[in-house]
C-alpha cells in the first residue's frame, strides 16, 4: 500500500514537473518546424535546381552565382540601399525634430501626437493606394496645382524610371516617421533635467544644449529606431506592390518583390530561395547583435 502510494506520488510529481514543458511544447515545436525547419528547407532549396516545384538535386553555389549576375537583382539591391538609406535618414530626422518640438510644452500635445502616429495603424496596401493616386500626375498633386493656376508645376516621379524609387520613400516616411517621433519623445522624457540646468547656468544656448547633451543621450532610441527601420526596409513588399507594382519597368524592384516574382511567377524557385536566404542574412546581421546586446543589458 505504502509503496504504491509513493509510486503514485512520484508519478504525480513527474506530471507536475513536466506540465509546464508540456504546455510550452506545442508552441516550441511550431517555431522549430515552421521557422527554423523552414529556414533550413529554403537554404537547402537555394542549393538545388528547383524551378516550378522543389527539386532535391544539388547544384552547389550556382543559384547564388546566377543571382548576383541578374540585372533585376542588382537593381533590387541598389534600390533597397537607396530606399533604406533615405527612409532611415528621413524618419530619424523628422522624428527627432518633431519630438524635440513637441517636448516644448506644446498645447494639445496629445492630440497632435495622435495625428502623427495614426498612419502606423494602416496597412501598407491602404497607404500605397492613397499615395498612388496622390502622386499620379493625372489626378493628383500635379493636377491640383495646375488647376490652382501653377501650370508649370511638374511632379511625375511615380512615372519616371529614375525617380519612382523616391516615391516609395515618401510614402514609407509618411507611414513610419510618427512612430519614430514617439520613440524619440519617450527618450527625451527620460532625460535628467538637472544636467541640463547645470549646462544652462554655464551659459549654453538651447541649440548647443540639444546638440551636446540631449541628442547624445538619445543613443539607445537612435539604435532601436535604426534597427527597426532597417528591418522594415529589407522586408518591404506591400507598399511597393500597392504603389508602383515594382515599376515602371523594374525601377522600384526590391529584394522582397524580386523573391516573390522569381519564385512564384517566373518559376525560378532555386534563385528565389537564394534571394530569400540573402534577405534573411542581412536581417540577421542587424537583428542578432541588437537582440544580443538588449538581452545582456537586461541581465545585469
Amino acid at each position, binding site marked *: 500500500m505504502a509503496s504504491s502510494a509513493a509510486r503514485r506520488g512520484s508519478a504525480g510529481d513527474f506530471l507536475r514537473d513536466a506540465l509546464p514543458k508540456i504546455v510550452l511544447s506545442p508552441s516550441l515545436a511550431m517555431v522549430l518546424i515552421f521557422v527554423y525547419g523552414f529556414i533550413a528547407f529554403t537554404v537547402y532549396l537555394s542549393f538545388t535546381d528547383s524551378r516550378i516545384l522543389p527539386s532535391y538535386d544539388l547544384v552547389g553555389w550556382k543559384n547564388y552565382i546566377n543571382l548576383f549576375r541578374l540585372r533585376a537583382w542588382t537593381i533590387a539591391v541598389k534600390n533597397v540601399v537607396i530606399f533604406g538609406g533615405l527612409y532611415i535618414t528621413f524618419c530619424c530626422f523628422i522624428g527627432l525634430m518633431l519630438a524635440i518640438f513637441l517636448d*516644448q510644452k506644446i498645447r494639445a500635445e496629445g492630440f497632435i501626437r495622435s495625428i502623427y502616429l495614426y498612419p502606423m495603424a494602416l496597412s501598407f496596401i491602404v497607404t500605397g493606394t492613397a499615395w498612388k493616386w*496622390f502622386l499620379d500626375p493625372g489626378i493628383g498633386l500635379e493636377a491640383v496645382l495646375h488647376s490652382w493656376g501653377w501650370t508649370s508645376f511638374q511632379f511625375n516621379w511615380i512615372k519616371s524610371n529614375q525617380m519612382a524609387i523616391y516615391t516609395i520613400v515618401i510614402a514609407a516616411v509618411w507611414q513610419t516617421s510618427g512612430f519614430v517621433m514617439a520613440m524619440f519623445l519617450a527618450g527625451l522624457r527620460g532625460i535628467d533635467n538637472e544636467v541640463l540646468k547645470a549646462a544652462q547656468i554655464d551659459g549654453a544656448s538651447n541649440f548647443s544644449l540639444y546638440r551636446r547633451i540631449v541628442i547624445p543621450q538619445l543613443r539607445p532610441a537612435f539604435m532601436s529606431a535604426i534597427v527597426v527601420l532597417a528591418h522594415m526596409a529589407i522586408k518591404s513588399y506591400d507598399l511597393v506592390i500597392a504603389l508602383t507594382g515594382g515599376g515602371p519597368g523594374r525601377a522600384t524592384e526590391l529584394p522582397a518583390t524580386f523573391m516573390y516574382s522569381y519564385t512564384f511567377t517566373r518559376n525560378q524557385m532555386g534563385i528565389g530561395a537564394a534571394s530569400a536566404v540573402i534577405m534573411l542574412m542581412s536581417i540577421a546581421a542587424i537583428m542578432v547583435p541588437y537582440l544580443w546586446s538588449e538581452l545582456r543589458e537586461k541581465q545585469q
Partner: protein
Amino acid sequence: MSSNASTQVVSTGRGARFVIYTILLIFCLYYLLPLYVMVVNSLKPLREIQAGGMMNLPDAWTLEPWKSAWSTAQIGVQATGLKPYFMNSIQMVVPAVAISTVLGALNGYVLTKWQFRGHKIIFGLLLFACFIPFQIVLIPMARILGIMGIAGSVPGLIFVHLVYGIGFSTLYFRNYYAQFPDELVRAAQIDGAGFFTIFRRIMLPSSGPIAVVCVIWQFTNIWNDFLFGASFSDFNSQPMTVALNNLVQSSTGVKEYNVHFAGAIMAALPTLLVYIVAGRYFVRGLMAGSVKG
C-alpha cells in the same frame, strides 16, 4: 517621465515658439492629407474626380462609391464588392488573434514562473523568429499547406498567422510576467495550488493590460498583412488587403477612383477604429514591439 512644469529647462522665445507651432501644424497637414484625400474623393461622383480638383470638397455628395465598393465592385472575376473579403478577414483575424494570445499567455507564464534548463535558449529562438523576413518561409509553407489540405482557405491563413504570431504574443506576456513577483506564485505553490490554478487565479486576473496590448498588436498585424494573404489564399479566401489591391490594380474598364478610395477606407477602418479607441495601448504595443528584451 518627469513632466514637472516648474523645472522645464529649455525655454523658448515668442518667435521661436511661433516657428515651432507652424512646423508642427504643417506636419499635421502632411499626415492628414492622404486621409482627407481618401475621404473627400470617396464621396464624389467619378466625373468630379476626372475633372480635377482632388482637394476640393464634393459638389454633389454621394454615397454611391461606398455602396459600390461594398457590394457591387468587380474584384477578380466576380462583381461581389469587398463585402465577402471583409468577412474573410474577420473570420481569419478573430481565431488567429484569440488562439495566439492564449498560447502567448501560457508560454510567457511558463518561461517566467516555471523556468527550466534551456529557457533562455528557447526565449532567444522565439525572439529571433519574430524578425525573420517571411520570404524565407514562403516556399515550404506553400508546400505544407498543400500537404495539410488547407491551401487557399481561410483555415490555412488562420494557421499561418497563428504560427508566426506566437513569437510576439509570447514575448509580450513573458516580459510582462517577468515583472510579476515570484513570491506570490511560490506562496500559492506552498498552499498546494497547481500549475493551472496559479495561472487562472493569480496571473490571469492581472493580465488585462498586456492582453489588450497583445490583442491590438496581433489584430493590426494580421488584418494589415498582405504577403501571406497574397501567397496562400485563392479567390474564395482572399483577405481584405489582397482584394483591395486587386480592385485598385484591375486594368479593365474605367478607373473608378472614388470606389477605390471608399474601398481603401473600408480596409483601414477596423485598425483605425482600434487606434482611435485604444490609441494608448496601440502605441505601447508598437514600442514593446520595437524595443525588446
